């Protein structure tokens, strides 16, 4: 079975630009979560979606937004990029809201 897939794997943007990251969950998983991981730190919660509804939001500015589609895939959008947005963005899927998380390999974003 395919695991969680994310795209793109790497991308470079400049300050002020916008980025869209994509995530396909494991088949049958209805919950998708997004985390930001800065080098040397633990993942930081951004959003969780379950059955296409936002279930939770972390302490991130409104420049961060996300959505979940009817096929349970998800997109994370970040507007007006700042240098500090450079990080590994991890998507995780789970069967239920509070189940074990299955992480994708991540999208590494570099903002110049």
């Amino acid at each position, binding site marked *: 079975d395919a695991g969680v897939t994310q795209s793109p794997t790497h991308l470079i943007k400049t300050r002020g630009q916008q980025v869209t990251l994509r995530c396909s969950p494991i088949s049958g998983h209805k919950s998708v979560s997004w985390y930001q991981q800065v080098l040397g730190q633990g993942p930081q*919660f951004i959003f969780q979606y379950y059955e296409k509804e936002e279930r939770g939001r972390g302490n991130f500015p409104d420049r961060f937004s996300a959505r979940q589609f009817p096929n349970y895939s998800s997109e994370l959008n970040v507007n007006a990029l700042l240098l500090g947005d450079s990080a590994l963005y991890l998507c995780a899927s789970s069967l239920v809201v509070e189940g074990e998380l299955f992480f*994708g390999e991540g999208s590494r974003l570099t903002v110049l």
Partner: protein
Amino acid sequence: QQPVQSPQAVILREGEDAVINCSSSKALYSVHWYRQKHGEAPVFLMILLKGGEQKGHDKISASFNEKKQQSSLYLTASQLSYSGTYFCGTENSSNTGKLIFGQGTTLQVKP
């Protein structure tokens, strides 16, 4: 609000044991443990739920002290493959799916 992990780093020889601790300042509903190897995604190890339910791998055990708001991960007879960074993730209430991860504990197992 971020849980505190200790120690920050540990070096072991194969076959030795290790304990990694995770402590929260808030009441906990559940504790998750994940291992991340360099350049890879975090991998699930264990969930401990309020009330004593556990779900995880056979060779790794953990405890959850709800009163002390602490969890410990026990790695016995360590193998080279145990090397990596271990994160605890805490959930403060049920059905939120919002995990707050600690800063990580780096474990290196040497032959």
